[in-house]
């Protein structure tokens, strides 16, 4: 089992994928933002003024009430850093796929040899297309 020492938690993420949290209190807002930070996929922050931003939340600070995220911009595979204020947020929608879900060692072990070979071949093909293998 490689690099589990580096492993972010990989269970429970599917519990949030596709769901939206509409906080009713400051505590619920803080928890929603913490979950967004913990989530290994893009989230959509929906704002009180009707606007929204979709991106990857990589940092938050309960004291300064600032959320930092990379929002998609400049191309489908590119993004730029930006910030949002806690006070703007009306809801947190877990809109992107949870990239950590199903990637645990435990899950890998339950797969058949054929499934493993197929996944490896798929990854190799992608890596070769990216020129990194």
């Amino acid at each position, binding site marked *: 089992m*490689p690099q*589990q*020492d580096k*492993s972010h*938690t990989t269970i429970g993420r599917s519990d949030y994928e596709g769901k939206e949290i509409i906080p009713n209190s400051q505590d619920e807002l803080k928890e929603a933002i913490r979950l967004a930070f913990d989530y290994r996929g893009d989230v959509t922050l929906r704002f009180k003024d009707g606007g929204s931003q979709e991106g990857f939340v990589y940092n938050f600070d309960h004291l300064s009430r600032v959320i930092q995220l990379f929002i998609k911009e400049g191309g489908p595979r590119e993004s730029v850093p930006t910030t949002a204020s806690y006070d703007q947020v009306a809801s947190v929608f877990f809109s992107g796929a949870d990239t950590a879900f199903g990637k645990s060692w435990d899950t*890998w*072990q339950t797969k058949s040899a054929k499934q493993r070979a197929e996944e490896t071949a798929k990854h190799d093909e992608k890596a070769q297309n990216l020129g990194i293998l």
Partner: protein
Amino acid sequence: MPVPISQAYTVASYVISQKLRGNKHYPLVLMLEPLFRCNLACAGCGKIQYPEHILNKRLSPQQIFDAVEECGAPMVSIPGGEPLIHPEIGEIVEGLVARKKYIYLCTNALLLKKKIDLFKPSKFLSFSIHMDGLKEDHDVAVCRDGTYDTAVEGIKEAVKRGFRVTTNTTLFAHAKPENVRKFFDDMMDLGVEGMMLSPGYSYQKAPDQDSFLGREATTKLFGKILQNRKKNWKFNLSPNFLEFLQGNVDYECTPWGNPTYNIFGWQKPCYLLQDGYVSTFKELIETTEWSKYGHKSEEVRCKDCMVHCGYEATSVDDTFGSLSGFIRTVKGTIAYGI
């Protein structure tokens, strides 16, 4: 001796100078993650589980040089992702060598033969090859057949060209001491300078708790692996850390010893935990509530951790922190041939 004398001297003089200045929170090894993209997809590895737009991000050479200067640590470890994917990795390493930093370039070696011409042998540069055991163990660990053989070819090529080469190995509960000992023999036969070892880290919520090592299991496993050790085994670790892994000495974590910098900034509090990011190293040191972390703290995520990124710095600090620590180091150096 697996570490060049100049490196040992640099590290020793650095630590002593920090202690003379009364600086408790000094960094020893900067963990520099220039990207998260990898060409392997090891099951359970969380470092690469990000959306595509995050995987496409790279730290620029200038960002890296600025971070290295700001941090001031004498050693820089470059994990990832797979750093050899970074298009400017040659320039990055060259710049770090010019700054006289001792670099451990951590790689799975799949691209090593292809990219090796980007680098020049130097006492400041060591390829740290990810090897999780014998062929069957390693290939299963990285979920890809043939990876061990490719890594071995990379090691041979790097050794032949005069590069410093080390290995880094993470061990879990299912590790068989006899296999690990055979693996050590094989690595030494390949001509590696030294081997790094660490127990895997046990995240509280990780699904496969059976594979993670608690403290007692860790000390038992490493005790079996390292008993009657062969004279030709060389470890790229502090002898005190090896004693710690066997339960012969008790240490507390030094999470600031291996600070982590990546595309998100300086990671709080350590390489393993992600509790947020700050934009400067100074801020990391000054605003992190260090007392909240470590084996003796209330933090459950730290309870079973004995990983080198938290305890190697403690081991080195112990060498220069007390006479008993220094004596322990001298004895260990003789015993382990370090």
